[in-house]
């Protein structure tokens, strides 16, 4: 027996940090360390081990490694590895015997361990939303550190709903709030709330988080606001919410405990040798370097220099000038041009959440510098913050971004037929046909491949963005990171790092991923040739030469990048102001600007039952700007002239179905206001009231309904309409009904002209999932008979079996017969209403939009009031089901037309092609796999016949910014 000390060393290599813990033989913690590794994984581990070697020169260690980035290193270094959740599990069992649940948030991982009632460990899968990296990203967006974010959050007055599933969506929720002047304190708290929601819904997946909860990991130990959000949401008291002192290194602690079980011990020198000899490199796929030589790069730079704009001096220029502002999502751009298009003033910078302040500052600077003989004759603004800036500064025109960009691109390339704009937060692509915008492609569901993504990465790796992108130019083996969403990209980068890719290679790889994303994900071009002949690229991200070069490489030929690439929106706005020169500009005068201030407050709109959360910015002249409202009502505008929408009609019609039987009820049945019931409510209310039941319909959907059922959702990638169903079931259980009725139906009604008439798998069988995941549901209180509405006999028989024991007031077959009549009446009413709306619109010379989705898209929590947005733009709205019967497919479809709801889309699209004053807008719920099939087909039908295709993707996100751009572009295109 040697007399050297034997210690245990646990090394936890996370996605962003390295943690080490040393234990002695009694299990006492002798040393611990927590350090960001900035993706220098092996180096950081080595540094820490070297430090320990100095601290304990004579000891021998049993060593073990853990953590998401530790697996590869452990394997190649031949160091034992333990799964990180398992390591945490050991430590928890040792230190906190009475804990029921452990929640651990790390850099890119989130984990939950249920300890009582069957040990179960879960970690985030493909989705890294709601983790430390997410918080970092959000802090970056606000231009502050995570600690500052935390401090802000403690002063919050309200919380905004922010999509919690994925950082990408959260960003697109936060950005408009920032632009519209919401308080940063409130946003900070909302971000933490989103993290909590993600953990509760995404990770717990159907299991309640209750009892004593232990919180681990860096973010939860350092961020007070996050801790409070968890404690408040989970309704824990001090006794049941434990934040261990060791939290940041807790997993390393467990890992050390695991190591302690091992007999083997070695001096640290040996460990260091193993680390040094660890092979790196492996599975990572690499691609061609961006530039073969310096010379190639210089030629490239010279070529792009040719698209420069002439300058004029602001101090000396005379005559007329035009102001253009682009209030983008993360950046604010401003230009002042002369009558001849010369550049007098330019500004491009991150808005840090305060776009108005920036613009005021630079407008002031223009006024101070410009020569007395120069006169601003007009001003236009575009971008996310358009409404707000316009209201505040008296800008003459607000134009939609697509129009602004097209104007600017045509200036440089009159024959342009394709524009690709990659900004901080969005990708916008337009195809130009016949000198007008033909189709628009935006990134809504995914912001991967945008500037802000590279920026976050640069910062995570400890670089400034300019320096970081420069690094990639001469990388020898750029990493192929694929083309997927930011979250997935994070793990791809992690893997590349694990395999030993350099920062240079990663930088170049990210540039190439942006392009692949834009081309194959957003535009979904099959080949580069599809894009067009004359391509103009713009947006701040293309100022990055590595990105520009990647695009040219993928395309195989050069493109035009104007030197003012980042200012194109503002330039286009200025050109617009020049073309549409107002008689007298309303732009704020220098005098008024000097005393300009504003403040923002919150309110709840009382205009209708939607109760939108409003943000009101008050301007000094008494004017105010309201945002957050779905319709014009909240903005205090008159609603007299808005056009009708069949969505309102259908929704009311469903709610008003008869619920009382004649005579004394024989029982009370609950029908959920969800999925197929949004169409079949007339049928089922008729059946049950005829049979003598009183019908209780679950309450109207809102965010709370979602929260109410959130804990019973087993699959976080299912569509939002399905997720809401969980809350409706809970609501009916609360209301106290005898039983909830929800039939399973493989088939929907056969409406003809199709290959088959299925329901989608989710609509068909969702009751099975509800029954299996809501512990309150039993055979008795939840009845889900199988039936086929095309076969009345099957409906009658299923009902008989299902309602055994009740003394029904009439025979099921009579009730069913009456129900078919009622359903047919509903169909006829909807079709007639559509004709009435169409006639009314035509009388007033207004355009008509077929807003094509599914029956359940009339749910206002699902459609987020999109139809109101359309009517507020002066167009009438009808639905796919109300006009489908009028369409007849003349050409054979390129897909198997086998779902009833989706068959309507094709027929409605065909009908639209026969009506000159109609366009179709397709509503797509995120996660609807079937729409991956239908959207392309609907587009084909429309475009083949010269119609525009517009798609609006919707989720729990309730911000309408992107939808508004699309719809306004559609309006602009229709007017051309």
């Amino acid at each position, binding site marked *: 027996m040697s007399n050297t000390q034997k210690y245990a060393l646990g090394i936890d290599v996370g996605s962003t940090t390295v943690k080490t813990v040393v234990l002695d033989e009694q299990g006492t913690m002798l040393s611990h360390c927590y350090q960001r590794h900035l993706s220098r994984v092996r180096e950081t581990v080595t540094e820490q081990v070297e430090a320990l070697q100095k601290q304990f020169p004579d000891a021998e260690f049993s060593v073990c490694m853990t953590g*998401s980035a530790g*697996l590869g290193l452990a394997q190649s270094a031949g160091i034992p590895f333990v*799964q990180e959740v*398992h390591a945490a*599990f050991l430590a928890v*069992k040792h230190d906190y015997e009475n804990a029921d649940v452990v929640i651990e948030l790390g850099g890119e991982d989130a984990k939950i361990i249920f300890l009582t009632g*069957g040990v179960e*460990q879960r*970690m985030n899968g*493909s989705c890294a939303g709601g983790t430390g990296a997410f918080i970092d990203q959000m802090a970056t967006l606000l231009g502050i550190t995570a600690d500052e974010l935390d401090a802000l959050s403690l002063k919050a007055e309200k919380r905004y709903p922010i999509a919690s599933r994925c950082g990408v969506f959260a960003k697109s929720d936060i950005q408009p709030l920032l632009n519209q002047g919401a308080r940063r304190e409130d946003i900070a708290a909302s971000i933490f709330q989103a993290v909590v929601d993600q953990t509760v819904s995404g990770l717990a997946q*159907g299991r309640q988080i209750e009892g004593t909860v232990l919180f681990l990991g860096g973010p939860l130990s350092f961020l007070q606001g996050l801790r409070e959000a968890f404690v408040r949401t989970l309704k824990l008291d001090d006794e049941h919410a434990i934040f261990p002192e060791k939290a940041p290194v807790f997993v390393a602690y467990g890992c050390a405990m*695991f190591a302690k*079980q091992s007999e083997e011990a070695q001096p640290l020198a040996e460990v260091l040798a193993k680390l040094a000899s660890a092979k790196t490199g492996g599975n990572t*796929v690499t691609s061609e370097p961006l530039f073969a030589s310096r010379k190639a790069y210089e030629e490239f730079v010279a070529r792009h220099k040719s698209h420069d704009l002439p300058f004029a001096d602001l101090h000396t220029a005379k005559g007329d000038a035009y102001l253009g502002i682009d209030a983008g999502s993360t950046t604010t751009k401003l230009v002042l041009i002369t009558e001849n298009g010369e550049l007098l003033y330019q500004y491009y910078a991150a808005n840090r959440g305060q776009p108005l302040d920036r613009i005021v500052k630079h407008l002031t600077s223009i006024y101070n510098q410009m020569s007395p003989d120069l006169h601003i004759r007009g001003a236009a603004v575009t971008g996310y913050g358009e409404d707000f800036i316009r209201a505040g500064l008296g800008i003459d025109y607000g134009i939609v971004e697509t129009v602004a960009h097209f104007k600017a691109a045509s200036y440089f390339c009159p024959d342009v037929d394709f524009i690709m704009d990659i900004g901080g937060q969005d990708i916008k692509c337009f195809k130009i046909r016949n000198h007008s915008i033909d189709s628009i492609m935006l990134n809504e569901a995914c912001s991967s491949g945008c500037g802000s993504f590279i920026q976050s990465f640069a910062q995570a790796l400890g670089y400034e963005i300019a320096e970081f992108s420069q690094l990639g130019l001469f990388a020898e083996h750029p990493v*192929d990171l*694929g*083309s*997927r969403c930011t979250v997935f*990209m994070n*793990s*791809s980068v992690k*893997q590349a790092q*694990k395999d030993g890719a350099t920062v240079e290679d990663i930088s170049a790889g990210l540039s190439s991923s942006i392009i692949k994303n834009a081309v*194959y*994900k957003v535009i*979904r*071009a*099959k080949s580069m040739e599809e894009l067009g002949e004359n391509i103009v690229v713009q947006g701040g991200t293309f100022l990055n030469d590595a990105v520009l070069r990647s695009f040219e490489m993928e395309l195989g030929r050069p493109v035009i990048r104007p030197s003012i690439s980042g200012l194109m929106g503002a330039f286009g706005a200025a050109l617009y102001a020049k073309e549409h020169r107002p008689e007298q500009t309303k732009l704020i005068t220098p005098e008024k600007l000097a005393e300009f201030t504003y403040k923002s407050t919150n309110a709840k709109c009382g205009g209708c039952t939607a109760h939108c959360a409003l943000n009101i910015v008050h301007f000094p002249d008494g004017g105010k700007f309201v945002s957050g409202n779905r319709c014009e009502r909240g903005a205090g505008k008159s609603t007299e002239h808005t056009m009708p929408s069949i969505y309102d009609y259908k929704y009311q019609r469903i709610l008003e179905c008869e619920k009382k039987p004649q005579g004394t009820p024989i029982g009370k049945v609950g029908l959920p206001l969800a999925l197929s019931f949004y169409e079949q409510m007339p049928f089922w209310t008729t059946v049950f009231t005829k049979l003598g039941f009183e019908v209780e319909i679950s309450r109207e959907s809102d965010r709370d309904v979602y929260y109410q059922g959130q804990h019973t959702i087993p*699959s976080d990638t*299912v569509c939002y309409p399905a997720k809401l169903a969980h809350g409706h079931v809970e609501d009916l259980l609360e209301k106290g009904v005898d039983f909830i009725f929800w039939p399973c139906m*493989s*088939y929907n009604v056969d409406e003809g002209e199709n290959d*088959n008439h*299925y*329901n*989608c*798998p*989710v609509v*068909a*069988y*969702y009751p*099975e*999932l509800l029954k*299996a995941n809501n512990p309150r549901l039993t055979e008795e209180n939840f009845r889900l008979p*199988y*039936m*086929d509405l095309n*076969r009345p*006999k*099957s409906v009658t*028989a299923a009902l008989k079996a299902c309602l055994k024991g009740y003394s029904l007031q009439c025979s099921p077959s009579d009730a069913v017969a009456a129900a078919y009549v009622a359903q047919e009446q509903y169909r006829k009413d909807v079709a007639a209403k559509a004709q009435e709306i169409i006639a009314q619109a035509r009388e007033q010379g207004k355009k008509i939009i077929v807003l094509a989705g599914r029956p359940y898209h009339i749910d206002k929590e699902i459609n987020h009031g999109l139809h109101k947005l359309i009517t507020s733009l002066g167009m009438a709205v009808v639905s796919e089901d109300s006009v489908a019967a009028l369409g007849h497919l003349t050409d*054979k479809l*390129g*897909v*198997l037309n086998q779902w009833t709801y989706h068959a309507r889309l094709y027929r409605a699209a065909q009908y639209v092609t026969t009506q000159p004053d109609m366009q179709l807008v397709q509503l797509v719920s995120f996660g609807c*796999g079937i729409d*991956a*099939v239908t*959207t*392309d087909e609907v587009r084909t039908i429309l475009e083949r016949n010269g119609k525009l295709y517009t798609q609006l993707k919707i989720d729990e996100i309730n911000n309408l910014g992107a939808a508004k751009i699309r719809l306004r572009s559609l309006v602009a295109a229709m007017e051309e």
Partner: protein
Amino acid sequence: MSAKFTPEMKKTHTILVPDMLPVHFQLLINIMAPYGYRCELLRTASRAVVDEGLKNVHNDTCYPALLVIGQFMEALKSGRYNPDTTALLITQTGGGCRASNYIHLLRKALESQFPQVPVISMNVSGLEKDPTCGFQLTAPILLKFLYAVLYGDLLMMIANQCRPYELQKGATEKVLQHWQRKLDQAFKTSEYMHTKKLYRQILDDFAAIPRTKRNKIRVGIVGEIYVKYSPLANNHLEDYLLSEGCEPVIPSLLEFVMYCAVSTAVDGKLYHFFDSSVLKNGLGYELIYKMQKTQIEVVKKHGVFDPPHDFEVLRARADKYINQGVSMGEGWLITAEMAALAESGTENIICTQPFGCLPNHIVAKGMMRVIKDAYPNANIVAIDYDPGATRVNQENRVKLMLANARKPGDL
């Protein structure tokens, strides 16, 4: 409209077939040869396959479609095949799942680039019926296919029970290769009909492989059919499990065939109809079930290896948790397989699916809670596959499941 496979093309064209199950599909394409079809299995697994998939299909489409179409497009562009003398074969299961649309997505992808390449739909549900098509699944071919599935299942299952324990590395693979060749020959005569005899010989040959005691952690793999079986789709999950010291347990392909066959009868009963399709499928099911029973009995009697699940037992398992009316995608079968595995001692289960798979929301992730309630030791992990999910992430999740399987004391 894309090109049609004419009878003349049998002479000129090579038919490319995407590989899903290496053992089974090799048998299947060799059966086709004597009937004049020159088939070739596509085993390409390069990154280009995924890239072509991303370029050619809607990126939200399920991963199997993306891979299969990517594999085809990669092959056509590779120069290895002349597009003028190449045809593509793709299976079409029918039913309310997106999978029935793969063939259309493939045709769309071909339209602008390889319009001359004909696409053949292989299905037994009467989709795309065309008597003038040069490719016809005749009764004799179908019958041989059925036998091939039975043999393929037996080989796959027994090999899985041997491989983790073989004393000499590669011994199992050698026996497997031997039988693969021998069965190819058997299908050229009527020898393949002598199932009992061949089963016994197969069992004996595998049993003769020197092995250690069968004591490793068994891990069942269930899920969407393509991802479950195809190493390309699941990042070589079987190999990974072997390297982690586990025994992979993979349910048979016949279960899926029987699941399809029985669903018409189930629908008939649920929705109150009876027609020729109910009758035909009912009879077909009876026949196949009898064949399965024979195989199970031989394996049981032989006594060395675990037999496949009896399909009627699977149906009974399903009934406890989910209605057999859930028949889109792999439907109730996934639930039943999870239950049957847990019950027969394979408590660790990996449920594989393409990211966002619609039926699996219900039958897989949606049923885990009730399965765990019924089998408290069940240790189930759901893993999503898509072009962006990295291996490290998937392996981490498997590791976590294994850490759970190995209970703290075992370590």
